[in-house]
């Protein structure tokens, strides 16, 4: 008989194998799902996961998805390491995009190289401010940050919808819920000519190294991990929990806000109701898939980015519904959490020898 047994100490190998197993299980389940829908499993999986990456343009498109995912996930890594369960990267992303977009529209007539930095900075600050609300509610009123950040996500989304249906709607836009186009001075340049991926990807890479250094080499990173692992020990050592909650939430808000403004001024070029396909939520999966490690975040962002691309491909080529992306992301998180059980536990065959002895006595 199979039995679940606690390991004497956590398995390091399993901590790394768990994401791999989760991906394999997701692929198997995906294949079964496609077969059930009457598609060839191999062809469908090829269309979903391989065909988007068969040319340079595809890799550039992956970069387009990876940059915002990484930026949000890096910030969330700080929060989650401190066990500050910020679910609000989505709202911080939207407010960053909305704020930056608002400034870009107001500065539409100014032709200056300072427009872009101002827009980007303002977007990041808006994201930071949105996260500050959750930090204030948590540190001052002891509100659970899971609830407040989720609620703030909906407020952010509705604020965006109100803006593009109302005050920021393009007067010459045939009543579509969209803003006017930004001027070229408010647009982030592409990383390479002829490809859509913008310089925000380079920023994401630099920030990855910066966050990695922060976490592994500085006292702030150490304090964050102590607070997350053992709040009593943090208090015992004299680390200020409230300051760390503020710090992690503000950094995360700024990074998500930066991701949001980079999205509107990098690829979209205007405000629409759909500036985020759920990057802020997918970034949560990235953080767990990437084991809360900056390099893992890069790999996790690529996999989650691929599910966005692949979802678009199967929509176009196989006429599958758009929700297939969410389905794959959900399966991935589900399997990941299940496989993570085996970091602390192992399966053991109930030894038959002991049974015989017990029966004999």
């Amino acid at each position, binding site marked *: 008989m199979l039995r679940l*047994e*606690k*390991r*004497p*100490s*956590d398995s390091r190998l399993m901590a790394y194998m768990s994401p791999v197993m989760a991906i394999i299980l997701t692929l198997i389940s995906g294949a079964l799902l496609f077969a059930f829908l009457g598609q060839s499993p191999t062809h469908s999986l090829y269309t979903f996961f391989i065909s988007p990456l068969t040319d340079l343009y595809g890799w550039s498109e992956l970069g387009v998805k990876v940059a915002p995912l990484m930026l949000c996930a890096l910030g969330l890594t700080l929060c989650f390491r401190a066990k500050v369960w910020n679910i609000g990267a989505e709202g911080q992303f939207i407010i960053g995009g909305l704020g930056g977009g608002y400034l870009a529209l107001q500065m539409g007539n100014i032709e200056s190289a300072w427009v872009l930095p101002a827009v980007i900075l303002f977007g990041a600050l808006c994201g930071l401010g949105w996260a500050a609300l959750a930090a204030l509610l948590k540190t001052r009123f002891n509100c659970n940050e899971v609830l407040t950040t989720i609620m703030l996500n909906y407020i952010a989304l509705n604020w965006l919808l109100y803006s593009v249906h109302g005050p920021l709607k393009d007067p010459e836009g045939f009543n579509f819920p969209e803003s006017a186009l930004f001027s070229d001075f408010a647009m982030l340049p592409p990383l390479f000519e002829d490809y859509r991926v913008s310089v925000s990807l380079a920023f994401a890479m630099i920030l990855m190294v910066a966050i990695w250094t922060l976490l592994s*080499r*500085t*006292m*702030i990173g*150490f304090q964050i*991990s*102590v607070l997350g*692992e*053992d709040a*009593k*020990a943090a*208090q*015992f*050592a*004299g*680390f*200020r929990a409230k300051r760390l909650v503020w710090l992690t939430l503000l950094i995360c808000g700024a990074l998500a806000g930066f991701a949001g403004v980079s999205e509107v001024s990098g690829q979209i070029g205007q405000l629409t109701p759909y500036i985020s396909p759920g990057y802020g939520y997918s970034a949560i999966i990235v953080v767990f898939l990437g084991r809360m490690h900056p390099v893992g975040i890069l790999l996790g962002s690529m996999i989650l980015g691929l599910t966005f691309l692949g979802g678009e491909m199967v929509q176009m080529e196989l006429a599958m519904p758009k929700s297939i992306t969410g389905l794959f992301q959900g399966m991935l998180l589900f399997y990941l959490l299940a496989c993570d059980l085996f970091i602390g536990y192992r399966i*053991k065959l109930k030894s038959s020898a*002991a049974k015989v*002895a*017990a029966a004999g*006595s």
Partner: protein
Amino acid sequence: MKNRLELLGITKRYPGCVANQSIRLCVGEGEIHALLGENGAGKSTLMKIIYGVVKADEGEMIWEGHQVEITGPSHARQLGIGMVFQHFSLFETLTVAENIALSLPKEKTGTLDELKRKIVDVSQRYGMKLDPDRYVHTLSIGEQQRVEIVRCLLQDLKLLILDEPTSVLTPQEVSKLFETLQQLSSEGCSILFISHKLDEVRALCHNATILRGGKVSGDCDPQQTTTEEIARLMVGDDTPFDKQFTKVEGSTPSLEINHLSFKSEDPFSTPIRDISFTVRSGEILGIAGVAGNGQEELLRLISGEEQCKNESVVLNGNPIGKLHPDQRRKLGIGVVPEERLGRGAVPNHSLAQNTLLTGFLNGLSQFGWIHYHKVKDLAARIISEFNVKSDGTEAQAKSLSGGNLQKFIIGREILQHPNLLVCSHPTWGVDVGAALVIHEALIRLRDQGGAILVLSEDIEELYKICDRIGAICDGRLSPIQPTDQVSIELLGQWMTGEFHPPGSPVDSQEATYA
């Protein structure tokens, strides 16, 4: 004497360790039998097997001449086996009688009034005063233990198992408990007494079985065997156990507590009521007391985890009552908290990271940048100087045994050369060998001029290492006097809150503010 209980070849394996290996044990009718051993020797597992909480993998159990297989605690109770655990299982919001009624079968208890009469009968017969109508939360720990024992006595008790029953009691309560146990034994009830306090075992028990590393390492008659010989069976090497330390007098005041009063927001904490005392450089001051009488709060107020009026806590002349823990550490305070895992050390962090936890102010980091080679060096020094058994500096704190982790935490604090070290229960649950290492380290720090405050429930330990001693009860502090002038009876009175015995009110007043 007939055998009541006999165990043959009992073996129990857990993942990664064998808790009991081929244990044999024999308890006669009316015998008080001690089960001795260090923490982790397998005593509790064996008790749980007898009481049916845990099933043995191998072996036989013979009860009054018949082989039995105990299916669970209720089966054990039917046979006449009763057990009092270290942590009581009582509902605080119910009365004594209601608690007992809940755990006994209906046919045994009868109506509540009949049960109350039985409780009074039994408690009087065995000299354990108990009012069946009192609510459990109003009872002292000693009285709660009586409830547990009376609950066992209400059935036809043939074997009573007590798991470290004296660790929560004052000396007076201990001697009362022993009288009860001796009376029970004379009436033919067998008693299995688990302890690691050798003096108690020698005073009470007829026979002793000693466990070491899950195996029986020897049997003895404790009244015929010296404490040293028993200790040797428990530890198994040639550590000198009964080392005496000389008492000294301190020099200049290091820590001064001035009229400290404090009430925490936590409703379950004990308020501190107007405590004043001084710890001098070069002395060890001990504060005895039963757990939950304000020791925890006092420690947090000194460490900085709680803040109070600035002048209430003074270190080397500087008021520090409003400072945070890290700011106080900078001024030279080292703290060893009661909880090792989950406050003194982060369970999932390595020993190196746990060195950084309180060592970050002592050159291990600069401008917020961590010098990991220095962290590792210090961690390695702690491990070697304090003989910490571990897989090196990268071992997770939670992989260490309690005693080894305690050696590590005390080493971490001492190697930072604190001028004041505050220790809570420095050797609680630590084996004899490790306790000696810890005591020697504390004495060494004292002789180098460090001021040390020890809060402990272990009176034996306090007498051994402390130069001056006092007791805390319900948030109030007794007089503090040189250890050799305080008899164990006097300390026991202090622990129960009787600070001013008639005849010497002036003396104690003086001592308090000396």
